[in-house]
Structures are given as C-alpha cells and as structure tokens.
C-alpha cells in the first residue's frame, strides 16, 4: 500500500534550462570577469567556483619594460572557458572596433571559441563609466558588419537598448547600476522595460544584466525579473572571500532563474493566512 506521504527526492535540479547566446547554448547563466583579483590563483579558484563557462578579459598593451613574469592566460584553461574580450577603456566607436579586432586576433591564436565575439563598451566618461549610446550603436553596427557577435554593454535605458538590438547586437546587456558600484539593480522598472521591448515578438533574445552587482541577492533579483543572465566581476573579485562569493553567485543565479520560471505570487496589501481558519478553536476577533 502506498501512502500520500511517500515521496522521493527530486532526481535532478529543475529549471536549469540552458541559455542560448551567440549561436551556442550554455549551462551557466553567469558570466564573470577576470579583473581586479589580488592573485591569479584566487581568480582561478573563483572562476571554478562560479560555474561560469564564459569569462571576460580586457585587451591591453604588452609591457615592454618591467614585464611581469606571469600572464593571465597561464591561469585560464582556454579549453574550459570561452573567452569574451571586452573593449573596456574605449571612448569612441573607432577605438572599440580596433580593440575588438585585436582581441579576436589573439583568441584566434589561442583557438578559443571566443574568437569573433566581443563585449562592446563605448564609454562616455571615466568617472561614471556610463556608456555612450551613440558610440555603442556605431561600434555595434560596424563590428556586426565585420562578422562579430556583439554583446553590448549599455545603460538601463530601454530606448537605447532597442536601438542597439536593431544595430545587430547578439545580446543587449543593460547595467543594473554603474560598473563596480555594487548597488545592484537600481531601476527595476527600466530593466523590466528593456526586457519587454527587447523580447517583443522575440522571446528568446538574450538580455544580460551587466554591471553593478554587489552581492548574491542582486544576481537573484536580476534573474527573477527575467534577465537571461548576469555578468559581474568586482562583486566576486573584491569580496573578502572571493571564492566563497563565487559559490554564492552561482547559487543566486540558479535560484533567481528558478524563481522566475516558477512564477512568483502577486504582491498584496493584506495578509492571507497560510493555516486554515476552519476548525480553529480560538477566539477570532470580528467573528
């Protein structure tokens, strides 16, 4: 005889649907940066703990004098991770295009599947690191014409987001808040509007919240409101314990995705009791 109480633990974690991005599918919806770590060893362990399959890097001049003995690439397993080069530090479309081409050239030398895609950043100013939407659109258009898959960092402005998608971006990546600010998703409504406009008639179009994450709950919030992924760096690299935080981010991303897929209850002004009134032996005021 079976009892209604009998249950078996779920065999597999539900709701871990893969992310389709730039012509491939990914099991992890977290993309992490490789900057600002106190050591390459810590970075390596944090990348591992994050579960990320895609990691971002920057393109910079070779040091010709006082060369460091070790390079980033000695600590990144290029067979395991897909490398997404960024155009960080560029303030014009022209420079972003140059940097993207240089990044592709290096990734081709490494035979990494990241060759041919780029995280486009065209910044407006050094203080806010907010994007220049016009430059971002120009760079996107030019790089798409050159065969790139462009993932474009932008602000949470829904109108710019749509223009960048129209310019051919494979993904639009609105910022939750300024880069490295740790303020999380500051304007949930704008991110919701970005999601709605970008996915109108194109539900599978990937939208990634990029920048601003401070803690694990920020990742969950972004995922819960329907973002397809989150890209972050500083919140892990500058945590007191980056490896522990990388674990937390992995869980938060999964939790947020599951919460989104599961469908949240509506918010209500008044309470609704979880225990039945019927059969209560107590005095109930007003009855």
């Amino acid at each position, binding site marked *: 005889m079976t009892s209604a109480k009998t249950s078996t633990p779920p065999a597999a974690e539900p709701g871990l649907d893969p992310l389709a991005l730039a012509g491939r599918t990914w099991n992890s919806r977290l993309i992490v*940066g*490789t*900057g*600002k*770590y106190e050591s390459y060893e810590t*970075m390596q362990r944090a990348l591992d703990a994050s579960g990320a399959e895609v990691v*971002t*890097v*920057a*393109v*910079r*001049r*070779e040091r*010709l004098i006082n*060369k460091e003995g070790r*390079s*980033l*690439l000695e600590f990144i397993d290029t067979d395991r991770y897909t*490398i997404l*080069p*960024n155009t*960080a530090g560029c303030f014009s479309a022209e420079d972003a295009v*140059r940097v993207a*081409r*240089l*990044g592709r*050239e*290096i990734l*081709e*030398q*490494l035979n990494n599947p990241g060759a041919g895609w780029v995280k486009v950043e065209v910044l407006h100013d050094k203080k806010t690191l907010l994007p220049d939407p016009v430059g971002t659109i120009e760079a996107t258009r030019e790089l798409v014409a050159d065969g790139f898959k462009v993932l474009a960092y932008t602000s949470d402005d829904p109108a710019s987001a749509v223009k960048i998608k129209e310019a051919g971006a494979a993904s639009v990546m609105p910022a939750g808040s300024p*880069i*490295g600010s740790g303020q999380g998703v500051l304007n949930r409504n704008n991110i919701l509007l970005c999601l709605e406009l970008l996915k109108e008639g194109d539900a599978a179009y990937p939208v990634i919240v990029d*920048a601003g994450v401070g803690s694990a709950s920020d990742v969950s919030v972004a995922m819960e409101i329907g973002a397809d992924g989150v*890209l*972050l*760096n*500083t919140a892990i690299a500058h945590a007191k314990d980056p490896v522990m935080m990388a674990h937390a981010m992995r869980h938060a991303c999964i939790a947020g995705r599951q919460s989104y897929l599961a469908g949240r209850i509506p918010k209500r002004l008044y309470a609704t009791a979880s225990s039945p009134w019927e059969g209560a032996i107590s005095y109930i005021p007003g009855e």
Partner: protein
Amino acid sequence: MQQIRITVNGEPQEVEPGTTVAALIERLGLAGQPCAAEVNKALVPKRDHPSRELAEGDTVELVTLVGGG
C-alpha cells in the same frame, strides 16, 4: 645604415630599416606568446607579421589579454 624611428606602445624606438612586425616582436621577447599587432591603427594579422615591414614614423601597438570585466 640609418635606423628608422617608430613608436611602440607609446614609446619611441629605433629599429633597422626593413624590420618586420615579426622581427620586432622577436626582438622584444614576445615571440611565441599570444600577441596581436596593429600598425597605424590597422590590425596586422599574424600571418602577415613576417612580411610586414615597418617604416619611419609608424605607430605600433602590441597587445595581449589581461584581467577585465
């Protein structure tokens, strides 16, 4: 023979006339490492490094990948 003056990663350098991008990379100890090169803001693909000769006044950028977000 008179050396030619070029700029490499923002620093002035003097090299022999006829120096190629590949020779410059070799001379700077960067051969065999992942490295991309640009001359006068135009990418020089790796296959062209051995044939691309540098000229007086050329601006060369040699870049690699570093940590970033």
